[in-house]
């Protein structure tokens, strides 16, 4: 289970997180929606142990991420929005390292790597240096590293952005499978349709705060123009700004 309580984070004078609290239960996929700069990535990076909070706490399966990071990170998986790797290594070398650090049994780790790489269409490139990978391939590798150990808590920061359609389907199937096995998944995305189809619950962030938390039953139906979550999202953000095309021409 993932628990976040009163998480605060500032970048100088700018408030990125203003006391965010949320819980993701085992077996639940929770979508994290918000406009650019709403604090989604900051929240996920803080929970993943990449940057410390100014206040508040985050725990994975009862282990505080910042007080006992090693214990907490044994249960965590994190697929980064902008993944970075040792460019000189092959994908397989990197995954072998991740498997070793996570204490996975070598045979099963290798088998699972191949099982993940196949549907994600990364199998033919596993022996190539990461340096030559495209953005989408890097995202797939980051996703594979995050789910390799079948984490109890999975954090996905725009994880499927850049995936081709078959790989995105395979990744969503893997997320559902992990959730069915009891994983708590926090899934951040800009694509409301993906969140609608994948998630059991949605948390909407606005200016560093939790603006709404809705279950699938609560978000209801959409209209002709908007999907249900798009409509709710626009309600929170307020009336949309005039589009570029409709702006009056400057004199």
């Amino acid at each position, binding site marked *: 289970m993932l628990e976040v309580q009163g998480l605060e984070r500032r*970048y100088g004078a700018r408030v990125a997180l203003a006391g965010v609290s949320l819980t993701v239960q085992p077996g639940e996929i929770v979508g994290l929606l918000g406009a650019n700069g709403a604090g989604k990535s900051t929240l996920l990076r803080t929970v993943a142990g990449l940057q410390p909070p100014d206040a508040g706490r985050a725990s994975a399966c009862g282990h505080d991420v910042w007080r006992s990071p090693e214990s907490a990170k044994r249960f965590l998986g994190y697929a980064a929005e902008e993944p970075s790797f040792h460019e000189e290594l092959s994908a397989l070398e990197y995954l072998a*390292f991740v498997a070793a650090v996570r204490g996975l049994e070598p045979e099963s780790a290798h088998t699972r790597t191949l099982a993940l790489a196949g549907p994600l269409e990364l199998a033919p*490139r596993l022996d190539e240096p990461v340096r030559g990978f495209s953005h989408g391939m890097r995202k797939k590798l980051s996703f594979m590293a995050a789910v390799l150990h079948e984490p109890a808590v999975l954090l996905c920061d725009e994880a499927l952005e850049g995936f081709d359609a078959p790989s995105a389907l395979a990744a969503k199937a893997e997320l559902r499978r992990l959730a069915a096995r009891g994983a708590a998944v926090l899934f951040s995305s800009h694509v409301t349709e993906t969140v609608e189809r994948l998630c059991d619950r949605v948390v909407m962030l606005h200016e560093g705060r939790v603006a709404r938390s809705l279950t699938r039953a609560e978000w209801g139906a959409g209209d002709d123009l908007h999907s249900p979550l798009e409509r709710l999202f626009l309600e929170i953000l307020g009336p949309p700004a005039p589009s570029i095309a409709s702006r009056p021409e400057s004199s």
Partner: protein
Amino acid sequence: MGSMSSMSRATPDPDRAFRALARRLTARRAHELGARLWFVLGVLALAVAAFTYWQVRVPLDGTLRQAGESAAALRLALTLGAFAVAGAAIAWVRRAAIADDPPGPEWLALPLPPPVIARHLAREAMAPARAVVVPAAAAWLAGWGLLPPLALVALAFGFVLALELLLRLACVIALHASARASGAASALPAARRALVSARRPVPATRLAPARFRTESRWRALARLDRAVSSRAGSPRGRLLFAGAFLLLSVAAWSLTHDLSQARAQAFAALMVSCAELGAWAAWRAAGDPATALRPLPLSLSDAWRARAWPLLAVIAAVLVLHALLPQGVPAPARLGLALSWALPALLLVLLGLHVGLSLGGRPGAAEGLYYGWLGAGIVGSLAVPLLGWAVVIAALVQATRRLGRWRTPEVV
């Protein structure tokens, strides 16, 4: 889409735009250094200037007394020339690095003539090379009171002219050397060819399949370091350099029959090697990609042991050789020699490692700080014997106190 016709347009002036960009970049970089680092840099510049002043002043005075004014002026001119050449070398290296990965946007996507872009990138490469002005100015000041003012003014003009010419020449040569391209691109002018060939895609070469194995976390990290360092690039270059000097250090005992000379050579080579091993440790410890490593259950102890144990094992092995190899020296003396060398070797290596661990995600800054401390140590030792080691010990204490920062990284 909004209409473009409503936007007023003027004739583009790329040179003006680049001048404004250069001004903003300079201001931003100066601001980002922060007051504390500016102070440290100022102190280092003063130390280097004072050191250069006395290193030039005393021999110049001797030359003036023994060979006259012309010989002294020639000596100072050669010294200033050497600084100009050093500046050109820095500019050459920087320009080559920038040609491989030009900082900034996709330059070729902008409606700019490539020579204008090349001039901007050359200015970027020349900026750090102008740091040689600090010791050069100190050397020039050393001539005051010894040489006639007119000669000094001529030397100053000559130095500035030579420096600017050599910097530009170095950038042009580096650009032409780096502008590799094949096919249709090879017919392009160098400035455009360099931009076309920069950030080129890597050929999809296959590597040996990785082996999945059971091991402790620090060993897995050490294995990762080995894999990363065995591939082409900066870490491999550092290890090869360090290895060559380790071999030189051991070979020194058989190169000469003069024991004191052999000992001095062996010690000097060992220290150079350890300094480079320290730089490797700083680079590796600070260079782990945060989004890949930070979410993993690794501790500071794992990160420390993964780098420290292999380095300490290498140093121990080399010191054992030093305790065994010298002929005609009693065994206790050989053992004492090896043990007395262990402390400075450990100091250098651990300083690099601790600086790297305390500056996670910033390998360039870690390397710069490490070399800065070593430079301060060398200057200190040349000014007052053994003062440099006090500087290195102080640096190690400071870096060790900052190790806790490893646990609270800042990845924005």
